[in-house]
């Protein structure tokens, strides 16, 4: 199989059921920030949910960006390592330098409705071959030579982009 360069995307959902400390901090602070920022688009206090705002106030689409500030300092704490996604020996192995924060839904009065997602985009990986259900991956270019990871694609992980590489190393688009 010719080597392909891929990036993976892990869409981490954080909602009322999230258990881990980091997730809970992000959940609390983003809900607070949503309640504060949404007032800009809801000055007559007509709406109570994010979905209502999106429907009636087109500009409220900016809230994904505006609320992301509450999550940024927590994302910084990850040290550029994508959480939760582990290789076959249970270790996180993906690094990221790009992410996208989105609000899935929220409610000014019911915290249980608040739900956000952080999309983590991995740095480029070489997909060497597929062994059974497992992808054999290594960090592209800057990775330690020879070190690979066996990875089975999990729910909420997508192959975000793909480039084929010819045998002579040139990228085929």
């Amino acid at each position, binding site marked *: 199989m010719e080597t392909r360069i891929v990036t993976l995307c892990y869409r981490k*959902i954080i*909602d009322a*059921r*999230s258990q881990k*400390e*980091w997730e809970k*901090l992000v959940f609390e*602070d983003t809900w*607070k*920030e949503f*309640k*504060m920022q949404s*007032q*800009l688009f809801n*000055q007559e206090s007509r709406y109570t*949910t*994010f*979905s*209502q705002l*999106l*429907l009636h106030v087109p500009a409220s689409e*900016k809230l*994904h*960006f505006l609320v*992301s*500030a*509450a999550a*940024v*300092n*927590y*994302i*910084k*704490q990850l040290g*550029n390592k994508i959480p*939760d*996604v*582990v*290789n*076959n*020996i*249970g*270790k*996180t192995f993906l690094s*990221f*330098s*790009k*992410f*996208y*924060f989105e609000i*899935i*839904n929220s409610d000014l009065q019911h915290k249980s409705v608040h*739900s956000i*997602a952080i*999309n983590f*985009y991995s740095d480029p990986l070489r997909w060497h071959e597929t062994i059974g259900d497992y992808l054999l991956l290594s960090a592209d270019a800057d990775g330690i030579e020879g070190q690979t990871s066996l990875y*089975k694609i*999990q*729910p*909420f992980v997508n192959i975000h982009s793909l480039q084929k590489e010819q045998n002579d190393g040139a990228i085929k688009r």
Partner: protein
Amino acid sequence: MERKLFLKQGFAALGMTFIAPLANSCKKNDIAADETTGGSDTGSGSDTCTVAPTETEGPFPTKNPSAYERKDITDGRSGYKLTVNITVGQVSKSCAALAGAIVDIWHCDAEGNYSEYGGTQMQSTNYSSVHFLRGRQTTDSNGLVTFTTIFPGWYQGRATHIHVHIYNASGTSLKVTQIAFPEGSGSALLAVNGYSKGMSGYTYNASDNIFSDDKDGVEMSTVTGDKTNGFSLAIQLNVP
């Protein structure tokens, strides 16, 4: 999907969420007590068996303020230095200073652009510039907040302005308003001259759809200073 439900929940109803079962651990079939000899098939769990994360967790996360909470909101945007001093007073208390109020400001850069999601919607982890020229401070006992920023540029249809949102300590909105800049000869606005844009096509306060009806000048600031040493803006904003 039922029309009623869709209308009530809107687009969010399409994005049902559920937790990813990433933490399912492999389960070995229990070896029966009487199968200790011989080559017994120990089995290795179900077809969906995946390895659980097994790493030292941590460092334990610490509570972190919003990325907005900072005095210097420049984030590397170039422009003439501007110090923004906002004093918040309470009308119900004869405009006495309101301490503990949260004040957000935001404005465009020298070219007239706001920080916002780009076309691809991805943010790089260059965290320091993602929310440029947006910031948050809490008023002190004198009702004062101070920000270090740059003199704003301008964009089509609007006079130069700074957006302000004042909340009480619990985050309830008290006021959403905008700060206007003096325009007379010798003013900072004319000294800055719109940066590289110049002032051709500029909308002055009298024609601005937000400021044109501000007869009492409640949105008007005072600005002192010069391009070499930087400018200083001051305004009193009152909330109910």
